[in-house]
């Protein structure tokens, strides 16, 4: 058994990546994956240093960004304060790796610098776009939006997973395992359930046969998004009611953007637009913040 739920996530995302590369007709270059991983890790490292150097005087919530399982052994070392701070906090490599894998799975680029840009924005946003120590953009999602809007070089291929059932089963199985460990299955269920209902309503109204509905829902990309991106526990509301409302809004907005604005990237835009609402929801529903630590419950942050 792996210690951290993120290890499962890394395992499954890598599996999907390999599966996709081997069996799907992807325009994904291995170099792009390398660039995504390297940039994400490097950005995380640099921002961690900056953060620890200038962030020591920052709000006391800073410790929440640190991985929990390791105590700081370097506290007593006679080194410069900055370096000491760096040494005292092991590099959080799991989260940036997950973001990098997410980007590789979803984003397609013609040139490598575009991938580097997406990866940089993704990780930098965790350090810059945060309120009371909690980042509110899903890093990979923001990276995708940045690449789509800032460059003329990136795209997302929502159709390229196809709709084979066995993929869906693998996604749901793997996603279920991760979500169960993270405890955020409610978000996925609310999102997928309400989105399916909305699409069913539309299908009924338009008078399409039900295979159209099934076809629209059995897209590998949608499941991947619902199981591995929407659910990032660090960037969604903390309290369950807030998460449910948030997931419903996400489904609604996705539905509108897809069916009335004909955006093939509807889910990513919906998540991007709704992410800032997390702050509001966290204020309205105070609850314990998610932390990747398995055993260390924390008291509420928001006062």
């Amino acid at each position, binding site marked *: 058994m792996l210690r951290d739920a993120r290890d499962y996530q890394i395992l499954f995302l890598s599996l999907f990546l390999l599966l996709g590369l081997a069996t*799907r*007709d992807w*325009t994904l270059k291995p170099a792009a994956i390398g660039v995504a991983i390297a940039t994400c890790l490097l950005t995380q490292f640099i921002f961690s240093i900056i953060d620890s150097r200038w962030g020591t005087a920052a709000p006391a919530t800073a410790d929440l960004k640190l991985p929990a399982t390791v105590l700081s052994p370097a506290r007593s070392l006679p080194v410069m304060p900055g370096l000491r701070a760096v040494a005292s906090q092991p590099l959080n490599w799991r989260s940036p790796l997950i973001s990098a894998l997410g980007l590789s799975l979803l984003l*397609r680029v*013609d040139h490598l610098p575009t991938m580097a840009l997406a990866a940089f924005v993704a990780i930098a946003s965790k350090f810059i776009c945060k309120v009371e120590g909690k980042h509110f953009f899903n890093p990979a999602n923001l990276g995708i939006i940045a690449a789509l809007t800032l460059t*003329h*070089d*990136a*795209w997302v*291929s*929502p*159709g*390229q*997973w*196809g*709709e*084979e059932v066995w993929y869906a089963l693998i996604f749901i199985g793997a996603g279920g395992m991760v979500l169960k460990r993270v405890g955020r299955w409610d978000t996925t269920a609310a999102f997928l359930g309400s989105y399916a209902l909305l699409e069913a309503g539309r299908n009924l*109204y*338009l*008078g*399409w*046969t039900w*295979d*159209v509905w*099934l*076809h*629209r829902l059995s*897209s590998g990309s949608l499941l991947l998004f619902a199981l591995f991106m929407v659910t990032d526990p660090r960037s969604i509301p903390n309290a369950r009611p807030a998460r449910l409302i948030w997931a419903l809004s996400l489904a609604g907005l996705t539905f509108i953007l897809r069916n009335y*604005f*004909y955006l*093939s990237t509807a889910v990513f835009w919906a998540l991007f637009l709704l992410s800032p609402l997390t702050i509001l929801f966290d204020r309205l529903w105070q609850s314990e913040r998610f932390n990747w630590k398995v055993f260390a419950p924390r008291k509420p942050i928001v006062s």
Partner: protein
Amino acid sequence: MTKYRSIWTGLLGAIAALLFLTPTALAFCGFYVAKADTSLYNEASQVIIARNGDRTVLTMANDYQGEVADFAMVVPVPTVLQEGQVNVGDPAIVQRLDDFSAPRLVEYFDPDPCEPMMMFDEAEALPAAPQATTTRGRAADGALGVTVEAQFAVGEYDIVILSAEESDGLETWLIQNGYQIPTGASELLQPYVRQGLKFFVAKVNLEEFDRTGFQQLRPLQIAYESPRFMLPIRLGMMNAQGAQDLVAYLLTPDGQVELTNYRTVKIPSNANIPSFVEAEFGEFYGTMFDRSYERENKEVAFLEYAWSMAGCDPCSADPLSPEELRQAGVFWLAPNSSIWDTNVYVTRLHVRYSRDKFPEDLMFQQTNNLEFFQGRYVMQQPFLGEATCSAGADYRRSLPTRFEQEAQTLARLTGWDINDIRRRLPDVREANFDPNPWWEDLWQRSSQLLSPVVHQG
């Protein structure tokens, strides 16, 4: 280096005949309807979609084979079209695009392994040409809650643009106005009516048609502005028994087009195949396409070509001139621009769709993917002259392995019997004159290698 000669032979009319044998009933994005109960078959529909931003020019090739008097078609369109937005195009332009983007057979010749080598290229293109678009359908008459938004004549066509509140009304209107539409049309028209789509209905004005002097109906072109980048295929499958072929040429300024609700898969390409395939390339490609289609569970679109319009390598036909591109609907190109300035990217998608595997209409998106792709098959013609040197003998010995590989590739791509293929491979043994037996070479080389060592020692 190598005396290297490339001649490439295009994919020919043969392919058209052989590739699309599937008997099909109705056409792509609407139904072609005939006023009598004539059964008309289409082999493959062809459309050109030129799109930049929300602006779209859709060209529907018309290869209708039945009585012109019976022809009519109904296509859902996103906006009301006025007279100026409809045009009758030149059928040659579809052919040109087809020739230009068709899967191609390339031929290379091995040099004489015993001759000093020079290099030159020679390329020569044969016209390529698949597909015929025809269709069958029936037509009929019309109804209630239906608004005639516009009515005009363009070339040999009489056009009516309809909007409807309910599909029943639309069905009745069509029936009352003399279109005998397929049973169950109302049910299928409903989703389009409720999405607020309009209906483009065309039939032939016989007097005008006679006056044009054309033997065949010319393609209809429509220009509209809409964020929807899609092609309705469901109507065309209403009475279809089997699968139908659609070849779409998508012209965009920035890069490849792909489907967003089905997978887009590259057709197997760059395979070395035995040279006897040249005589039956059409059959080869058709079989290979069938096999790929089966392998992908019949539910993907195949990418056959994706390239900038400013070039090609090898070219299966001359690149289209800016004027021709404008005829194909590329409205963002200035009339007299240079051929090298054309920011036009062509994507050729070949979709074989059937009701059970393609429940939804085709949705497209333009990507910024600038990767070039073409369906390309290579014949490497062996040098079968006399081998008069040891390199020649080595070359000879290498040939059977190479032929075997090519045979296996061909068998894998087409499913043809490997033994049949092997029987048709060139026989290299009878000409296999070897002036230097292998041992001679061995001793010679050994003595050469040894001598410096001996000297040094």
